[in-house]
């Protein structure tokens, strides 16, 4: 009887899976192909706003073997959208609570939680999955998993190709991307879609604040360091935020600026992105719809042609689904060196600082080599000390660099990525 219950339970999904439609006429509907979905191993990265939805959707799409990674614990501000968590769960690991909830609700499914960072695992771990679905709020983590999956591709082994489906939301907007490593544009190819936020000049914060945000940044960056009210700033500690809020308020008052509130202080300091249940529902469902289509061929999926779906819901509803081109000079999936136009008179430090704000790099701790000679290394400390004097030298006169030289830049946050450039001086 159990089998017939199981059959009745999945009747809507199976109706579609057993009957090819006009848009997928040659898909495989053999019993073998139908059974394969249950063995498909899926990795979900993130058990937050998108992650909760993704786990529910995968479970109700016939996937039975899922792992989920998230290092975070549950906060009260998660409860307006992360629907697998209850008030009593505050403080517990997200991955653990989410996995247990879905396992309990949907019979016959296995979800293995990992309460840790993605960087804690190596290729051997990632090899076991056929598909990765990401619901992350960090660009750095996206870049890391993307580089890892691209690097794992072995052209002679089709199992080494793990499609990556990435979702992201902000307020009423969101996006879904399908990446087939080395075959379609990867996350690094599209990095310039996330422009780093322009920083307010320090002198504005220090001497001529005009906006409430300037007062808050002043309290955050300058006053905190000067007064050190607590050993380390914990952005989740209300006492710390209150201290910053009071500092910012006093400064605002001094300059006649209005609008500093507790909520704004928290928003600026933590760089809070508004998040709601409905947008997460849309994007997570879109990701899982693509995951199911890829795993079963029940309909054409995003990927080889159009690979990017953008959703915007603040002014009516607008979606744009388009093809993004691969970049031959992508440091992850391309490898060709890009030209790097710089002023020969700047110092090495200025060059390295510019890598933090360059939209296609966004590196916080770059190390640099030129013509196979190390100019500056962040680690280990002994090499850092040896190369530090180079930071204040100018590129051309002091370091002897010239147009046509090859430059390689790395960052410890992305151990597998090397940015290759051909230097090109802009003026004399």
């Amino acid at each position: 009887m159990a089998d017939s219950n199981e059959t009745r339970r999945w009747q809507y999904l199976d109706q579609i899976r057993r009957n090819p439609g006009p848009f997928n006429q040659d898909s495989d509907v053999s019993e073998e192909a139908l059974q394969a979905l249950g063995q498909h191993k899926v990795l979900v990265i993130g058990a937050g706003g998108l992650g909760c939805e993704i786990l529910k959707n995968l479970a109700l799409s016939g996937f039975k073997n899922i792992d989920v990674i998230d290092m975070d614990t549950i906060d009260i501000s998660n409860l307006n959208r992360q629907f697998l968590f209850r008030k009593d769960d505050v403080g517990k690991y997200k991955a653990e609570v989410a996995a247990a909830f879905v396992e309990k609700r949907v019979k016959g499914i296995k979800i293995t939680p990992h309460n840790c960072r993605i960087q804690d695992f190596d290729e051997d771990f990632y090899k076991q999955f056929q598909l990765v679905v990401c619901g992350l709020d960090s660009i750095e983590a996206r870049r890391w998993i993307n580089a890892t999956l691209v690097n794992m591709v072995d052209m002679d082994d089709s199992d080494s190709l793990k499609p990556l489906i990435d979702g992201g939301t902000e307020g009423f907007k969101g996006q879904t991307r399908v990446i087939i490593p080395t075959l379609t544009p990867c996350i690094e190819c599209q990095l310039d879609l996330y422009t780093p936020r322009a920083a307010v000049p320090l002198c504005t914060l220090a001497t001529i604040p005009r906006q409430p945000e300037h007062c808050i940044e002043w309290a955050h960056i300058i006053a905190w360091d000067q007064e050190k009210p607590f050993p380390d700033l914990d952005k989740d500690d209300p006492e710390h935020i209150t201290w910053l809020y009071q500092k910012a308020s006093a400064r605002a008052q001094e300059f006649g600026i209005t609008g500093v509130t507790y909520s704004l202080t928290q928003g600026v300091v933590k760089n809070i992105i508004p998040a709601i249940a409905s947008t997460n529902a849309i994007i997570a469902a879109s990701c899982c719809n693509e995951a199911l289509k890829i795993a079963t061929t029940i309909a054409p999926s995003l990927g080889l042609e159009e690979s990017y779906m953008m959703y915007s819901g603040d002014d009516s509803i607008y979606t744009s689904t388009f093809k993004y081109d691969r970049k031959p000079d992508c440091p992850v999936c391309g490898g060709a060196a890009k030209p790097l136009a710089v002023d020969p008179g700047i110092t090495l430090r200025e060059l390295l600082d510019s890598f933090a704000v360059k939209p296609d790099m966004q590196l916080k701790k770059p190390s640099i080599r030129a013509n196979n000679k190390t100019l500056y290394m962040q680690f280990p400390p002994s090499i850092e000390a040896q190369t530090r004097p180079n930071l204040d030298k100018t590129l051309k006169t002091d370091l002897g660099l010239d147009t046509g030289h090859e430059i390689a830049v790395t960052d410890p946050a992305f151990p597998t990525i090397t940015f290759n450039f051909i230097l090109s001086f802009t003026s004399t």
Partner: protein
Amino acid sequence: MFDNGGYFCCESGQVGYNLRNTNGFKVSGVHIFHRLKRNANPSHATPSILYHVHVVAIGRANEYFLDGIISDISNILTGNEQYNPWGHSGLVYLVLSHLPPGGATRRRNSMAEIVVNQTPPVLQGPTEKEKKYDRQLRLWAASGQAALESANILLINSGAGTVGIETLKNLVLPGIGKFVIADDAIVNEADLGVNFFLDHSCLGRSRSECCTKLLLELNPEERLDLQHVLDSSGPFTLIMHTNPIRQEDLATVEAHASQRQTPVVCIHSAGFYSYFRFNLHGTFPIVDTHPEVEKTTDLRLLQPWPELSAFAKEMVERIDALEDHEHGHLPYVVILLHFLEQWRQLHDGKNPTTLKEKKEFSKLVLSGARTNNPEGGEENFQEAVDAINKNIKVPELAPELEEVFNHQTSSEVELRSSFWAVAKAINLFHQKHGCLPLPGSLPDMKAQSNVYVKLQSIYKEKARRDAREVLESARQIDGGEHVDPAEVDLFCKNARFVKLINAKPRDSDLGQIFDTEKANDEAAEAMKIETGGAFSLPSSNFFVYLALKATAHNPTATSGEIMNTITQLIPHAAEYERMQQIAEEVARARGGELHNISAFTGGMVAQEVIKIITKQYIPIDDTCIFDGISSRCQVLRL
């Protein structure tokens, strides 16, 4: 400066509150926003209501407002809520005037008493609720949240039954007040494979009851209400019904909704396709459309008012004698006003308007920058040049606003609405002054703090004056007698971005839409071939709508039956191959839902319902069709 909270309590019609401040009462030009929250007050001996007051911002004093507001507060607190100027918004604007610095003040009127005491500052972090809803309050603020919390939503559920439940989930999480599910289905195995808000123990039980129970776990503050009858559980803020639906049920819902002017949304999800369609009964105006901040700048450089001109003039009177630091920190507004003056003297009093003139004007502005410095120029002059194209132009009335101005208010609802009274007042303002009320915000620009703050206050002061004029005129117009000053402020601030939904008559000729959408498809195909696939336009989703709608009362219709229904309306539909294919794809699902498609659709419907309930952002007008194969949405007015 008030920047933290106090308490506000009331017994037998008296109003009293404490405001705690950090630096005595500095109330020159003060306008304080208070958020009221009803709390049970265990510490009071007699039953009373304690209101938590949170002071958010500071503005301008005005005697007139104070009297009105005190009586409004009294009305609400004494249960006489017939006239509640704040509606469901939960926002109170309290304006204090002429309070002696550092002192306490006491003020009486016939209905209420306000006591302001100076007490030491107390830390006022966010409440539990503010913490829980923080990420959404940043999108729709306390006013939007209050509207959601007072909403009562009916879902008439049917068929595979998932899309409506997914929608409700996305409404329960952000905290809608109340919901009712009407559904006569009994839970079976197939429900467990598609609906997350059911489990094994639900088999054989009422689907509405089980879903309600599991949805309520999400937000225990929600109230349980299992009434299935429209009349006994209403009035509803909004009614959602899913397809398939029995013809007679649909007629009942539509009659009920049109009699009470309740918005209705019909939702249909099957296989890889879905659509949802709103029926809003009459025009639906939105003031709080949340335009992108960059678009909202309105500096009035070509129509400066005397205070602004005087301020600019004074700053540049001896521009060449200014010290480098001051010269390099002249705000670009002042720089542009100064050079516009010069330009007009050289050009018969005319402003630069053509592209060529603006280029020359840029050169003129840049020639004023000092270059004897290491940067070889000045940042503020560069900001001025960058601002020319956007800000030196005669403002035109946005078509959306013109539509509002030209609208003939007809229905009783419209005649009673304060929106239309304020719209008329703004139209009068525009006719009188040749411009809209000033929004009053000033973008950040390089300037010294005190100069920037002064300039900011010149803009704000003008905006306040304009809003006051609009308020006074609106109160003379039918429907505007009791208009809330806050509503006028918001309208004045957003006038350029006000939007009417559901204003035009519906185009009921499906045959004509069919021809247009088919022609679009053909053009898209031609373009794809012509450019070798480099450029492509999306295909129309209209045919998905036709095919799904053909199964609204018969979910398991075959593709032949679907085409039959369609060709009865549009005889030549059968000739279009894509129409045939889509009919086959719909028939493939046999009325079954795919969880992902229903979850996607439930997210979109919830988002639209939130926009309608909060009257914020811009909802669709009026049908959204989703194709989960190509992963595309299309909005059409049908």
